[in-house]
């Protein structure tokens, strides 16, 4: 654990992973996108709107995964005080928020032809929306402080508290909905056949590799920012009165 917490070791591993992740992402996108968007058969019911599926599901999937990883590394940061754990969480949070947004948007676009409306207050949609808010809360809190180190810790506490709350939100929203009235539409109600599975898995792989690659880039950027801050900071020491 300590070995990976060392920024140098950590970055060495991350940098080694980067070309693979980036390369694989390119390959998988090149393979997956044409199938997903062009050659895969349109759904007999949904027509071409089914293609949103290949973006929607991977995005939703990644955004859940990212929150999980954020919560775990925030906990590691709080317990063991490994700064890298926090830099990692901070680096990946905007990715999570973006994919959550993407899943929401594609879901809404898909909902219009499918349900005749952009939005329903369905259990999954609602809890997913609240996940989006938790992401935004994390990001806002992380840079709401004059002292960046305080933002780090506060945001980490929020990430952990939020993860405790996620299942609660999920189940409460589900109960609320079923008590009121049955959901208008059950998502994922249609059978998934092989012609859909292949592009879906290609896109899942592509999204995952892409996330890992961008995460490494953002890690570098975060570390550079810290380094820059430190460099600027060291000049603060020249603040004595000039000898007159």
């Amino acid at each position, binding site marked *: 654990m300590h070995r990976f917490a060392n920024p140098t070791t950590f970055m060495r591993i991350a940098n080694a992973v980067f070309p693979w992740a980036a390369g694989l992402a390119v390959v998988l996108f090149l393979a997956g996108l044409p199938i997903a968007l062009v050659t895969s058969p349109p759904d007999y019911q949904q027509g071409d709107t089914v293609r949103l599926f290949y973006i929607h599901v991977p995005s939703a999937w990644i955004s859940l995964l990212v929150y999980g990883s954020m919560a775990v590394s925030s906990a590691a940061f709080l317990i063991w005080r490994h700064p890298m754990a926090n830099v990692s969480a901070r680096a990946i949070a905007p990715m999570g928020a973006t994919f959550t947004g993407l899943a929401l948007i594609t879901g809404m676009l898909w909902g219009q032809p499918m349900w005749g409306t952009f939005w329903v207050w369905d259990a999954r949609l609602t809890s997913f929306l609240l996940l989006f808010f938790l992401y935004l809360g994390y990001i806002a809190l992380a840079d709401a402080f*004059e002292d960046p180190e305080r933002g780090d810790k506060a945001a980490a506490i929020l990430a952990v508290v939020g993860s405790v709350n996620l299942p609660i939100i999920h189940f409460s929203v589900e109960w609320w909905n079923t008590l009121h009235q049955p959901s208008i539409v059950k998502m994922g109600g249609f059978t998934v056949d092989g012609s859909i599975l292949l592009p879906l898995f290609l896109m899942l792989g592509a999204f995952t590799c892409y996330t890992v690659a961008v995460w490494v880039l953002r890690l570098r950027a975060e570390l550079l920012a810290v380094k820059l801050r430190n460099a*600027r900071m060291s000049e603060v020491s020249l*603040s004595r*009165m*000039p000898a*007159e």
Partner: protein
Amino acid sequence: MVPRINSGTALSLQTFERASFSGTGLACRRGGRLVFAGLTFSISSGEAVVLRGHNGSGKTTLLRLMAGLNRKSAGELAWNGAEIHDFEAHSALLRFIGHLDAVKPALTVAENLEFWRNLWGYPPVDVKQAAQRLGLGALADFPARLLSAGQRHRLSLARLLVAPAPLWLLDEPGNALDDASLQALAGIIADHRARGGMVVIASHGTTVVENGAPLDVGAFTNVSETHWSEAV
């Protein structure tokens, strides 16, 4: 009513027109209690007045009253002998440095100074020069939130240099300053007086003014036996 400045933008070259500022029979009531009464002072170009008095004697109150921030209960304030009615115009003639420093932590040292310069509508004086003068030169591009107590206070004092005005009202300007900064402040005050400026300063102990005329604020009453005890 903006003070005429006889020369260009280099701070040290500006001189002020001859002027005088005086108060007669000033009294101030705060929260129903008379803080002081019967205070009289007079100051003209190049002079300084040092307010003295124990804690709670009313030095801060008097300075804010001179600035027009607090309302006086009795007496008269005059500029060049004419009673001041328009305190808006009067305020263009003065700079007030109080207990609160008016520093924005999110802006850099230079941006803070630029805001004040723009606020008072002065031509683009080099704010870095002002920062330099108070030992903040190296910090000009750093956010003010990183400053220590003394550095922040120095930034607030640098406000005096970015937009000249003949009358300076300084409330304990030596607070939290180290020796080198105190010397720099003394130099800045001396320069200001040499250019025809006036300084009213409240301070305990440390003296950053030479030959200031003392004005005893505490002479009037003491907190313990005041109208307060009757009132409550």
